[in-house]
């Protein structure tokens, strides 16, 4: 590709053709301020914060969308352009509620940071303000249009990355509103609750539904036996929300912190991740040997489940009937564990810490009560857990490293890698290979299913069978595989799909910001955790073995079917008339 030479703030720089002024300036260490821009996802030039002067141009130019040109002369810091940016920001703030101190994004808000950086001390414009009501119809996501700066990152990520298109611009001019069509509630449309919108929102206009108070109440209730499970991804992400570097592993400190909060037992979703491998692995073998529907597709990711229910309901037979590890955990906590601990299941209060907003919807699905109670009572995102820690002054970094409680806290590296895209597949392959061949795997690392590529494929010889697998992360990539199944061109045995880009470590409940660079660091941390585990194959998990011996009897057995498997609901794309 041709190189373009231009001058930015009197410095010459050569960049690839097609580079924007914004990216070219970065190469010189000049960070032009932005608000709506989100690399590779939202490049639309809407907010007009990144204006620069280009010699010969009739107006100022939005650096985020303007491609460089040979000989271009750019000034990013003239008095005129700085003044214009400041006025644009002043306009944006003139229609923004000044509720920073009580906002969920206080001190983690891009608008707040801009106001600080620009030295805005006065808003000279008073007038009408956006006054649409809050949409809290969804169990997972809350929209507050008053705080929306109409950057449209949420629209782009929903439409382009996830191909869900649940929200878009409604009305026009000053009345413009980002919302589902006809301003319906999020719960009324084909929103999958993935929360990627909340992850990219620069302000507090779209965020997770905060369920912390329900947990405080349970912890304060002496009758309740409160147990908590932590998803694989949380231990490699939650530290970021408490000021640590991306990729920090805080497993043992988080366990200590949870105990400090008052949970009666601190368990691990990794345990039921291992259990999932045994159930799902056997289901796969059964389908392969018994002529069942193939390819079989994983069912751990609740955003993905709702996506297929809305957009590909005719492909539901491809889904594994296994519940997600969170829901397997809930069902076991209120049966197997309650029995073992001698606690009345009615008194067990089951909390999940998830990197995920869609889990909040999942735990409320009507079928998720096979223990006789709602299996999982409350789901908190990683961000909410960080808030709980902050509220009681827990300094995670200073805590000792503690162990999870037995038995539902015992796990293997295979359970841990569920948090990264490809992890479920890799964990399944480790087990399926050994169960089918009876041989020990030499190399446990299935590198070809790791990493951020949208769709990954591999063929793995397992005994006489070449197992053909595919792994997709992000629903846009899932859609590609679904279309291939529909077209009859997907001759895979097994497909892993994770709703969020990068898998759960990029989940919609993760610390903000979450971007490609940070996702990669979290993935690397996940595989470090895997390597550090004494056991790395699900079928070797002694607690899982004991669970079968004492309670479930065998994979896909009668009790498994009652507690660990589920069914799905075809939904269609549009609300019922």
């Amino acid at each position, binding site marked *: 590709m041709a190189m373009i030479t231009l001058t930015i703030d009197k410095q010459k720089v050569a960049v690839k053709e097609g580079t924007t002024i914004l990216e070219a300036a970065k190469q010189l260490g000049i960070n032009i301020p932005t608000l709506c821009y989100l690399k590779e996802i939202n490049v*639309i*030039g*809407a*907010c*007009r*914060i990144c*204006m620069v002067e280009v010699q010969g141009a009739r*107006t*100022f130019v*939005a650096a985020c*969308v*303007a*491609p460089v040109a040979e000989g271009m002369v750019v000034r990013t810091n003239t008095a005129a352009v700085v*003044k*214009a940016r400041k*006025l*644009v920001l002043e*306009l*944006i703030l*003139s*229609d923004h509620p000044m509720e920073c101190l009580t906002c969920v994004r206080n001190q983690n808000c891009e608008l707040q940071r801009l106001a600080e950086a620009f030295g805005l001390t006065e808003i*000279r*414009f008073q*007038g*009408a303000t956006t006054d649409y009501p809050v949409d809290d119809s969804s169990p997972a996501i809350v929209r507050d249009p008053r705080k929306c*700066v*109409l950057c*449209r990152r949420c629209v782009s990520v929903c439409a382009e990355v996830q191909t869900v298109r649940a929200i*878009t*611009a409604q*009305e*026009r*001019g*000053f*009345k*413009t509103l980002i919302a589902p069509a006809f301003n319906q509630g999020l719960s009324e449309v084909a929103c999958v609750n993935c929360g990627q919108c909340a992850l990219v929102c620069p302000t507090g206009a779209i965020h997770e539904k905060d369920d912390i108070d329900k947990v405080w109440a349970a912890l304060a209730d002496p009758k309740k036996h409160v147990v908590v499970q932590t998803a694989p991804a949380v231990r490699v992400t939650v530290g970021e929300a408490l000021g640590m570097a991306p990729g920090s592993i805080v497993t043992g400190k988080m366990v200590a912190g949870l105990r400090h909060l008052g949970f009666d037992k601190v368990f691990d979703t990794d345990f039921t991740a291992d259990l999932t491998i045994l159930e799902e692995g056997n289901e796969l073998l059964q389908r392969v040997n018994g002529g069942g529907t193939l390819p079989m597709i994983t069912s751990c990711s609740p955003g993905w489940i709702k996506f297929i229910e809305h957009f590909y309901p005719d492909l539901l037979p491809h889904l594994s009937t296994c519940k997600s590890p969170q829901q397997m955990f809930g069902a076991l906590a209120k049966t197997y564990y309650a029995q073992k601990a001698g606690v009345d299941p009615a008194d067990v209060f089951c909390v999940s810490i998830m990197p995920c907003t869609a889990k909040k919807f999942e735990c409320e699905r009507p079928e998720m009560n096979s223990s006789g109670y709602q299996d999982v009572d409350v789901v908190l995102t990683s961000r909410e857990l960080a808030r709980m820690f902050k509220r009681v002054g827990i300094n995670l970094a200073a805590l000792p490293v503690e162990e999870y409680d037995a038995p539902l806290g015992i796990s293997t590296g295979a359970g841990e890698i569920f948090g990264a895209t490809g992890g479920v597949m890799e964990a399944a392959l480790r087990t399926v290979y050994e169960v089918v061949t009876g041989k020990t795997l030499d190399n446990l690392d299935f590198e070809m299913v790791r990493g951020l590529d949208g769709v990954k494929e591999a063929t793995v010889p397992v005994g006489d069978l070449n197992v053909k697998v595919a792994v997709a992360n992000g629903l846009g990539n899932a859609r590609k595989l679904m279309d291939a199944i529909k077209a009859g061109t997907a001759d895979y045995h097994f497909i892993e799909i994770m709703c969020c880009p990068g898998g759960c470590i990029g989940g919609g409940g993760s610390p903000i910001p979450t971007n490609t660079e940070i996702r990669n660091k979290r993935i690397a941390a996940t595989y470090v955790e895997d390597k550090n585990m004494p056991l790395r194959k699900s079928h070797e998990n002694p607690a899982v073995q004991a669970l079968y011996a004492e309670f479930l009897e065998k994979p896909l057995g009668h009790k498994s079917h009652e507690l660990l498997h589920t069914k799905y609901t075809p939904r269609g794309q549009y609300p019922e008339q």
Partner: protein
Amino acid sequence: MKSLAQLEQLKKEMREVLKIRDGVASGPWNYHVMVCGGAGCISSNCRDIVTALKAELAAKGLEKEVKVVLTGCMGPCDMGPVMIVYPEGTFYRRVKPKDAATIVEEHLANGTPVRRLLYRAPGSTEPIPKYSDIDFFKKQHKVVLRNMLYIDPLLIEDYISRDGYGALGKALTQMKPEEVIATVKAAGLRGRGGAGFPSGMKWEFTAKATGSPKYVVCNADEGDPGAFMDRSVLEGDPHSIIEGMTICGYAIGAERGYVYIRAEYPLAIERLEAAIARAREFGFLGQDIFGTGFNFDIEIRIGAGAFVCGEETALLTSIEGRRGEPRPRPPFPANAGLFGKPTVINNVETWANIAPIILNGSEWFASIGTEKSKGTKVFALAGRVNNTGLVEVPMGTTVREIVFDIGGGIPRKKAFKAVQTGGPSGGCIPAEHLDVPVDYDSLGQLGAIMGSGGMIVMDEDTCMVDIAKFFLDFVVDESCGKCSPCRIGTKRALETLERIANGNGKEGDIELLLELCSTIKQTALCGLGQTAPNPVLSTIRYFRHEYEDHIKEHKCQASVCEFKAAEE
């Protein structure tokens, strides 16, 4: 139509039949009665006049000697319904259906024009019978509106009789694509939608752009308040648009064109649809046009009423089936336009200029107008002026000539105050600049713009703060909401103007408006936002004292604004 010769033959035949409209009585016809069928005249029931005339003619047994034709817009809307009787070119105004009997009896049966329906110049009692002697017509130069007084827009044969499709035939059979582009370039034609970009360059960029297929698009989303130039051309001469677009298709290597018309123009849509169907039947659209192997066809896309869809990138986005919002340029449509492919997009009036340029040559076109603004410009003359309506003048004509000579001056002896050109994107020209030549650059220097052709005349009873408020109110309503300066900035400017107009203006408001408006101009995403502050900036530039009167004295010279008690 398989050859130019075949077209020439048909044109010759039709010309013979229709030469009565050139003033030469001929054939079986004694008269052709052309009744204006522009939207204004249709609103004042000109169709009933046609019906009444036909009934009276039938009653007298004259239907074989007198032909009644409903034309496109003749221009003098204020006088409507109007009609012209050929061969002599008698002009009747404010005709009512009940006048049909008299017209048939006295004029069409007995050859005596009906005196009471004839035109009289303002302040004169002496009638002027022939349209060609009336200043309103005499001082115009019609290139775009060349066929308006002469053809039935629904008859392709009428269009052919007036050289229609001759330019297409010439381009396809005698010119190379690059020669067509060179001709348009040499003519100096600039985009008539408002921005004035040289059309030939646009075509050349698109022709040279990589990417296929390429598209030709007609912007017929005319939306300025009071503007109806494009609608009139589509209604009155739809084939001229088809011909212009098809020539462009040949020049740039496109096989498909789209016309994006706003839904509020049902008659234009109906007539263009009919014209496209006829053009296909005659082989001017479709496969192997003029036997040259060139294929081209046109589809209509109907806009849903958003002003911003007149902005070219928003229009293309809307054709693509998405929310009509502008996208950043570059890339320009010439490189990445409709569906991301190289696209020429011009407005209706631009397209109507193409055929005459190809037929008569670039030198002919370049001889009209000024050094940097060639050809003519159509204006919709509205507001406080006697002859409101549709006019076409050579570039360089002064505002004074348009308002006073063609427009007949200001009614009720009021004083002229200003004209607003370019609608909500434009600016005002005050009395001291009445002699400014109307061309892209001169208007730009005054802080106004050529725009698409809206020209609103204001007299002493107009309050300039109120005018600024009116136009800003329009843009606030029509802003798409994508970029912050336009979405919030225009709203804040309007709120400030509203305060000033109701007596709650503050010291410093004018300076704040100037700062705000110049920033919006510099930072908005598209042409709508970048030009939205123009009415405010231009009224402050020329009528700052009126703003000051409102703020300091709570005084509105024109007695338009009502002052409320101070808001505290």
